[in-house]
């Protein structure tokens, strides 16, 4: 038992980093519009599948990855322009309306992807080899470090963008009070577009980084979307640090639960913990400490 707990932690962190990246995408859209974008998982799928197709065409990874992310951004912008913006034209749409539209968009994108691509499962080559690295008795794949690193960089970049840049502050202002923001000359439409582009880019990046570990297929968005959403709730919706903390924690609970209790109850353990956290801290781990953004 002695050395195995380290492996449980390593495995948990690997899965957790993946959940964290998906959770971050939920947080961005929530941050800007207070809506939950249930198409977030599909952006992950589009990123992964595009990268796989581009690599299959013979492009090297360092070209395929940015292209796949750019492709997802275009899809994200189209979704915002053609679906959500129309609902909002003529005033501010209800948040619930937006959420329901994103569910429809998710179904549409998944169906479309099945037509464009096949229904098979694909793998992307690992960025830097697949030889496991041994750390104190536990083994970690180099790709897991890429995912963890990607999540860390994304959090720092988002923090800087939303707190230090004028446009980021404008986005936060729109989230707090759209009408006041518009009176101040902020294009709320532009803000929503930017938030969708960012969420799509982040989702696609997550899809690309995780494809070598989890593989990718047209229906992967459902599974990752659910876990990512749970992680975002656990950490506190709208908080970037919370999304990452929630993702890592969810992964760790699963890994340790499977190792020390029973792999059959691993998901149940994870969800019981989430329920307990939300019961005592309704705003999530990080969200609870911040009062309503004013």
């Amino acid at each position, binding site marked *: *038992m002695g050395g*195995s707990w380290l*492996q*449980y932690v*390593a*495995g*948990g962190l*690997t*899965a957790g980093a*993946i959940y964290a990246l998906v959770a971050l995408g939920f947080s961005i859209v929530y941050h800007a519009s207070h809506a939950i974008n249930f198409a977030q998982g599909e952006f992950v799928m589009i990123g992964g599948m595009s990268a796989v197709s581009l690599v299959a065409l013979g492009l090297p990874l360092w070209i395929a990855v940015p292209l796949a992310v750019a492709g997802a951004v275009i899809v994200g912008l189209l979704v915002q322009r053609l679906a959500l913006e129309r609902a909002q034209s003529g005033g501010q749409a209800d948040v619930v309306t937006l959420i329901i539209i994103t569910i429809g968009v998710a179904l549409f994108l998944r169906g479309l992807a099945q037509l464009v691509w096949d*229904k*098979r*499962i*694909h*793998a992307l080559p690992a960025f830097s080899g*697949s030889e*496991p690295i041994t750390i104190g008795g536990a*083994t970690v*794949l180099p790709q897991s470090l890429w995912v963890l690193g990607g999540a860390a960089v994304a959090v720092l970049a988002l923090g800087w963008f939303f707190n230090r840049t004028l446009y980021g502050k404008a986005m936060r202002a729109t989230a707090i009070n759209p009408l006041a923001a518009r009176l101040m000359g902020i294009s709320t439409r532009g803000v929503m577009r930017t938030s969708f582009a960012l969420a799509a880019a982040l989702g696609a990046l997550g899809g690309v980084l*995780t494809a070598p*570990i*989890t*593989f990718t*297929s047209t229906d992967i968005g459902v*599974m*990752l979307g*659910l*876990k990512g959403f749970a992680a975002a709730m656990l950490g506190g919706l709208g908080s970037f640090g919370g999304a990452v903390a929630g993702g890592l924690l969810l*992964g760790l609970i*699963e*890994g*340790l639960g*499977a*190792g020390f209790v029973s*792999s*059959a109850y*691993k*998901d149940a353990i994870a969800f019981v913990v989430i329920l307990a956290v939300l019961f005592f801290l309704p705003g999530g781990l990080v969200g609870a400490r911040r009062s309503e953004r004013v």
Partner: protein
Amino acid sequence: MGLNPQSVRHFARRWLLPLGLPLALAAPAWGQEPIRIGSFLSVTGPASFLGDPEQKTLEMQVEKINAEGGVLGRKLQLVVYDDAGDAEKARTFAKRLLEQDKVDVIVGGSTTGTTMAAVPLAEAAGVPFISLAGAVVIVEPVKKWVFKTPHTDRMACDKIFVDMKARGFTKVALVSGSGGFDKSMRGECLKVAPNHGMQIVADETYGAADTDMTAQLTKIKGSGAQAVLNAGFGQGPAIVTRNHKQVGVGLPLYQSHGVASKEYIKLSGDAAEGVRLPAAALLVADLLAANDPQKPIVTAYRNAYEGKYKSEVSTFGGHALDGLMLAVNAVKAAGGTDKAKVRDALEATKGYVGTGGVVTMSATDHMGLDLSAFRMLEVKGGNWSLVK
């Protein structure tokens, strides 16, 4: 009413044209009633990887048989409905096949769920029904009118345990997914393990969405097992294979027939080296010995399918081919489409060489395959090789 030219012309335009067109298309059936083969398959939906090749295979084979003059001088007429993997729809379509289309035999049912929904209808109507789904429950207990072509998961367990025993293993660690296939196979393996003197020392599971199974494999590493068996389907087994190498379990790994495709090797990469799994002969058509009884049929089917549809052949399409050919042979043996006679002929099938194996049915066995239907494969150099 006199037969003046005008009224004849009117009659022709009014009745003969609309009726005449379909009759002309069905012209081969004009002289004699066609033999109606009914089918409901999961062509779309989550089980489309089963239904799609099955439909293509049935269409291809019916076309071929008709081009060669049909059966007993009668053409085959194929009626296919898509149940999208929904048992309720399958039931409706089976009813339509039996009551409206009045089919002579049903060859279909891509999944165990859709098959079991149609079983009571076929039994009540007294129409031979050859299922293309895997689970043992379809033919156990034996149902008078129901047959099936694919191997069962119990056979896969048996095949794997026989191989383990030959290598001197007695302690096995089981790891399985949470899907229907995975659960069913896990249950069957647990059931038959004592028959082979196998002791299951670990029984781990993982969820359908899981991306990391290192925790389960680390546990197995310390369980004292001599071999690991993964009953799984989809991407799970490929992740298990990679994690198995990553954690350094160091025990021989067995996979199920559920992942017997090139895709599995591609996804698992070099971690798949040395992995063993049972599979149908169709997958290794090239590797079969020249005198192998299955070599001609699997080679012919693979070439025809891949030539026509430009996609890799799958065992599922093979099950459909076997189902159709069993029905055709039974009709030939019965000398017509009398349903009771066809059923008896099906039950009396002896030594039919299909893509799934050599089929010999009996009153107590409506599948008719034995363990020789599975070949034990090992991954070597990124490709399959036969274990002698």
